[in-house]
């Protein structure tokens, strides 16, 4: 028993230093403010995948936003709370699963909410000076969900009425401007 405990302790001692450095949870604002402090570090980010999935060969580029709209975008009833805050992600295709995640965020969808682990790269020389997170792991927190696109509503109906009115006025103008007979 004593030998087993000793071996276990030794195993822990050997494994702990070899374990990867714990990913630091940060937000995009912090990365933007102190990029050099995080350059090359393993970080964890949470947020909404937004815009487009840029499928480029064996990797996918997509933007991750972690602003106040990730939970409640304005088209979904959210209120204006400042600008967006986002950073590019570079995701290997083997962990890219758009069927599970759903479409990236837009006016029609609240994009998938994810937690990503990856290495922050600031003006990376090997990527023509791009700033991004090289993702190594991605966890889906909440898949994309559709947002209401609304209906024509009162503005639309009022607009149609105004267009009819404009057409009548214009026709009257043309009628008035016609050359006199004879």
């Amino acid at each position, binding site marked *: 028993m004593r030998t087993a405990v000793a071996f276990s302790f030794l195993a822990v001692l050997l494994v702990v230093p070899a374990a990867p450095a714990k990913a630091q949870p940060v937000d995009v604002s912090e990365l*933007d*403010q102190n*990029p*050099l402090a995080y350059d090359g570090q393993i970080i964890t980010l949470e947020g909404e995948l*937004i*815009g*487009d999935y*840029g*499928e*480029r060969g064996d990797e*996918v*580029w997509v*933007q991750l936003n972690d*602003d106040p*709209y990730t939970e409640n*975008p*304005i*088209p*979904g009833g959210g209120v*204006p*709370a*400042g*600008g*967006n*805050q*986002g*950073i*590019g992600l570079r995701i290997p295709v083997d962990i890219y699963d758009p069927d599970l995640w759903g479409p990236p*965020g*837009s*006016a*029609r969808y*609240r994009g998938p909410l994810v937690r990503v682990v990856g290495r922050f790269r600031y*003006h*990376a*020389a090997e990527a*023509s*000076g791009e700033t991004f997170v090289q993702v190594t792991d991605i966890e889906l927190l909440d898949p994309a969900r559709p947002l209401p*696109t*609304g*209906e*024509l*509503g*009162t*503005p*639309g*109906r*009022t*607009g*149609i009425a*105004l*267009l009819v*009115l*404009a*057409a009548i*006025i214009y026709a*009257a*103008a043309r009628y*008035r*401007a016609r050359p006199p007979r004879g």
Partner: protein
Amino acid sequence: MLLRPSPTDLRLIAHDLGRILAVVAAAGLLPLGWAIARGEWAAAGWFLLMIGTAAVPAAAAEFLGWGSRRQRVDWSHGLVVVALTWLVVPAVGTLPLWLSRHWGRWLDTFFDAMSGITTTGLSLVQDLDHLPESVNLWRHTLQFLGGQGIVLAALTFFSASGALSMYQAEGREERIFPSVISTARFIWLVSVIHGVVGVTVLTVDGILVQGFQPVRSFFHAINVFMAAFDTGGFTPQSTSIAYYHSALYEGVLAVLMVAGAMSFGLHHALWNRRRGLLQNLEVRTILTTFGILLTTTIVGLGISGVFTRAPALTRRGLFQVLSAHTGTGFSTVSTTELSRWSGLAFVGITVAMALGGMSSSTAGGVKSLRIGLTVKAMADSIREALLPEGAVVPDTFRQYGTQRLTPRMAQSVMAVSLLYVGLYLLGAAVGYAYGYPLDQALFESVSASAAVGLSVGVTAPGMPVLLELVMILQMWIGRLEFVAVFALFGFLASLAVGE
């Protein structure tokens, strides 16, 4: 003694404004069509409302303007129409923006519409990344209309007396053809050809290189084309051009920005393969200032340590100086990062914004021809002082042929240049008074007045109302290059106290 404008004067102005609103209504069909195609029904309703709102006064002006069409539109009418156009169009254009609820207050939507129509590119939009595509397209369409010159658009479709005054009041000095209408049509031809080529290249790049879906790639392409060629600076996504993570995309946009900042006279000369263009004063001036400012910025960035790697420094520095000098306002770095560009880099970008592009282009700022003429006038004066009495200093310069720099021309050029400096200082003083650091206040003021759109963070939702109003004023006056605005003030004064 001021003469009070007659009812006929007012009818003529209303008639022309009505025709310009008809152009706005027609332009609204583009985002309306997009909204319907993409199933954005609420947005389709907003655009119907805007189109109807523009169409009713347009039709009414046609009705009321009956009988006044044969009246001659004089120079002052043209100037007043242009100055009013650039207030009325953004006011109508705010409707879909306001109804989308992506702006905090109505003034913010007017700020963005003015920023769009003046091709500035500063924005107070919130949650841009969830904005309906059709509303996003409308923001960019406003930039296209403004860059082309909305009055120019009206002139293309409706022949009008007073065309020359309206054409020049929009900040264009040169006529490529004897007829303004022909010149307007040439400008549209150049733009359409650039549009077809630019949108095609960007769409193909988006699909094949960026891996976007075809519809989305086309959406990005048409928006950024309008913003690049008309040196506007709006982008469909919140991270501006950094969103694309592509040097190739940036390269295509750089070509479009340069094309947009070139005078249409130069386009015409290039199309006709005229030689000796490098001897033109304006071409030489802009190449010189670009070279100096690019070097200044890159050296500044190197010293400041913001960039630790040469390729990134060169790529970002080159794109930002080009964006600033052409008055576009695209950015490949974040607002926070741009605000860290201090020292020589700050000077390089700010001066590039202040100088602007070429005359009779879609760019704003003092413009290279004025800079070149100012330098020549000053150099001539110094040479006259140094040379023996009676020595003759040639007062000619090359600009599509040999031209004379008359004292009157020199005075006019220097006066406008000084007015721009005054406009830059006005906004900087107001920003500084509100507690912003002087360098940031100056940067943002120059960006607004010279219709650039780069920001270090002063332009943000919730900014002070007075500062916002001043920046709207700067965008309006800066885009119209003062004269039309002064004419409108004179017109209003004569309306109030004239006899």
